[in-house]
């Protein structure tokens, strides 16, 4: 066990964990941030997607020790407050994307990172750039929701 300092959603946090603990479990079990989900533990589904220094990472494959000194954003910290949703979250509600909702925090984090990098993605870029698994099959609404969010972010 080692003390690891990192910034999570803007706040300094200390995690006392095995160094090989995936960031996912440090967030969930040490910091109580359970919005980030466990889907496969193998980097295959994206349910665990968070941002590290603004980049989307699959936190089940990212040792918490590698996040030392870095800024981590989770779904809980994506929007400034509950009544001010991030553009992706707002588009997700407007297009009624979620079904069970379990994959959605990860998908939303992946989309938010994609739009930061590529503010005006083509449909193909969306289809190839978002590789999260959704077992409920919400895919048909995802492209429209990403496009709506892109528009909103562009102002």
């Amino acid at each position, binding site marked *: *066990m080692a003390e690891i300092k990192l910034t999570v959603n803007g706040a300094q946090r200390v995690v006392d*964990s*095995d160094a*090989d*603990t*995936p960031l996912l*479990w440090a967030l*969930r*079990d*040490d910091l*109580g941030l*359970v*919005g*980030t*989900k*466990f*889907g*496969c*533990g*193998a980097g*295959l*589904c994206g*349910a665990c997607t968070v941002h590290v220094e603004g980049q989307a990472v699959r936190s089940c494959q990212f040792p918490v020790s590698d996040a030392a000194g870095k800024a981590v954003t*989770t*779904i*809980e910290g994506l*929007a400034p407050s*509950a009544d001010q*949703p991030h553009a992706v*979250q707002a588009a*997700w*509600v*407007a297009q*009624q994307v*979620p*079904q*069970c*909702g*379990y*994959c*959605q*925090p990860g998908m*939303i984090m992946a989309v938010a990172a994609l739009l930061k990098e590529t503010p005006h993605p083509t449909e193909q870029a*969306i*289809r*190839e750039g*978002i*590789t*999260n*698994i*959704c*077992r*409920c*099959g*919400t*895919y*048909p*609404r*995802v*492209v429209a929701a990403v496009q709506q969010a892109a528009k909103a972010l562009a102002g």
Partner: protein
Amino acid sequence: MSEQRDVIALSTINRRAFLRGGGIGAGALVIAASLPGMLLPTDALADGPPPGAAPPPPQLGFGAMIAIARDGVVSFICPSSEMGQGTQETLARYVGEELDCDYARLKVLLPWADPLFVNPMMRRQMTANSATTVGYFTALRKAAAASRMLLVQVAAQRLGVAEGELTTANGVVRHAASGRSIGYGDLAEAAAKLPVPAQVPLRPASAWTIIGGSTPRKDLAAKVRGSAEFGIDVVRPGMLIGALALGPHPRAKVQATNLDKVRTMPGVTAIVPVEAGYAVLSPRFWQAKKAAEALELKVLSSPTAGLDDKGIDAAMERAFASVPPMEFPDFDFATMRPKEKRADRAAITAALAGAAKRVEATYDVPYVAHATMEPLTCSAHFADGQLTVRGPLQSPEAVRTELSQVLNIPFDKVRVEVTYLGGGFGRKWGVDFPVPAAQAAIATPGRWVKLIWTREQDIAMDQFRPAYRVRQTAGIGADGRLQVMHSRIAGQSINTYHHRKSPPGIADPTAAGMLIYGCYGIPQSLIEYHETKDLSVPVGFWRSVSASQNTFFAEAFLDEVARAAGKDPLAYRRAMLAGEPRILRVLDKAADMIGWSKPKPRGTGHGIAITYNEGHVCAEAVRVRVVKGKLTIEKIVAAFDCGPMIDPKGVESQISGGIVFGLQAAIWGEIPFAEGRPNVANFGEFRMPLLADIPPIEVALMPSGERPGNAGEAGTPPIAAALVNAIADAGGPRIRRLPIARMLEI
């Protein structure tokens, strides 16, 4: 639903409990809606709201599930489990439609196992068979309407006017003539003391404003913020988190050989023997998981020891050859036995022998997993003889019974609470996974325990949709018409695996139901089921149950029959559906959407298939290209009728999502077996479609005047048949064995 069942009885009951934890002052009465067909114990709400749910504010209760707070906010405890199908929104709309509250502020709370929440149609508290929308349709609207009538009565007294002069909207009773109004919050306490009206009229569909509207589902805001509490998200102070070390089968017996060593690993608090293995408990999942992986297990016995795909194949053949078949008669599901029609075997044999043309084929589907996005998980707490379980459960009532029986705890000492479900699809209908959580909690009294299955364990410990093999024979008359059909199915019985009885004298409907479609009016038909009694793979209900495989068998084979008769498969179906206008309308729409009659280039094919039950009709059509053994799906369309649609946007997502679910099974879904266990690990082997794999999917909703039906399962069944039919139409192979990726490159 018969008129008799529609009658709602409203009665006062002991309110102690709804109030306990709700903080309602003494002296207020709670009026409970006694939903039709439901038992109402005097202390029915004795359990009170679950501690994890947002506690209702000080309030007065109307009905078991509806409560009005003094500030006018209405809380509704949604009795069925929300697993993505939108049940919270659907049922909240029933309440909102008749209560005239401020719908935007209506709060939906999660349920717990309680006789008050029983589905009036199923007579159990469970979320399955798409029975929620129809089951609560009348009862919940009546409970809400009765509540509104009482509020109006009180307002009339206070304002000194006739009830007829009052209107209700947005949680306020208004007297237009004088401009005066009173909010529901101010009326509720007095209203709760009035006797419940004997007659509770309901608004006609033509007057609905919330039902059928398009406001976003109430559960979405929490889901996009990451604050919806799924089973895996249950967190309690001091909680232990458990990882599992499991044998090859849920009913395997195993023994750990290095317990002492693993016990000393970092973070390990306890190791508890549970069903089929051990739970390793620690404050952190990661440490628990590392320790669980270090446990060495000796398998003492396993029901599937040595099983592999060859063994499954052989078991199918043995069943056909030596297990006497059970007949699945043609019957009307609404009345069951009375209308049952048995086949005339002699006539069938004669008709097949005398047919101008015979078509025969063997079809296969493999075992497939549910692979809900949220792996299996459940939390539990045990102290002073009281067991509390909280988790993603489709069947809280059955879990309560199971825990009480298996763990020998009095029924009233078992409390079962429901979280959001990260997908259900039938898997979380199972009562298996709460048991080890409870066992672990009993071993560590006073501390909450949460068990989490890894993805690999979730798949390996699934209750799979069974593998089936079907042999079908059709006889075509000289006029090209389908005269006779004989279909034999072999595979495991879900009822047998779960030690449940099938309806006496007939085959297990979960295997054999609708293997031949009654809607086509085939003059002679016979369905027979040869149970593979020597297979013990864990099996269970998988989205749409028997329709998932039997629609593939029935609708793909019918295509072959049509082609053998020299007929267009759509025209062939249409000719047989002359007496089924509801199905015909939907079929024609799907055909039209895919452009069935338009010319198409070489290598392009169209396929169509239908599914239906008493609550819905769904037709799906597909356009594909097959070039040099490579398949491209260009477009999928669906036309769907489930009567009046409570939440059309939600219905659409159920159909398109159901198609994606069915597509996975059709193209990639397969659980092979080797060395006595499922030979897949994770999503690498049990492959899921990604966004880039999904062709354009168009859904046409075709509401009708029928009673509300169901949508959660309808999208899944037809897609496999439509797809293989399209592949054949495109000049590709006739695929009779799923998954398609075994035959074609995608």
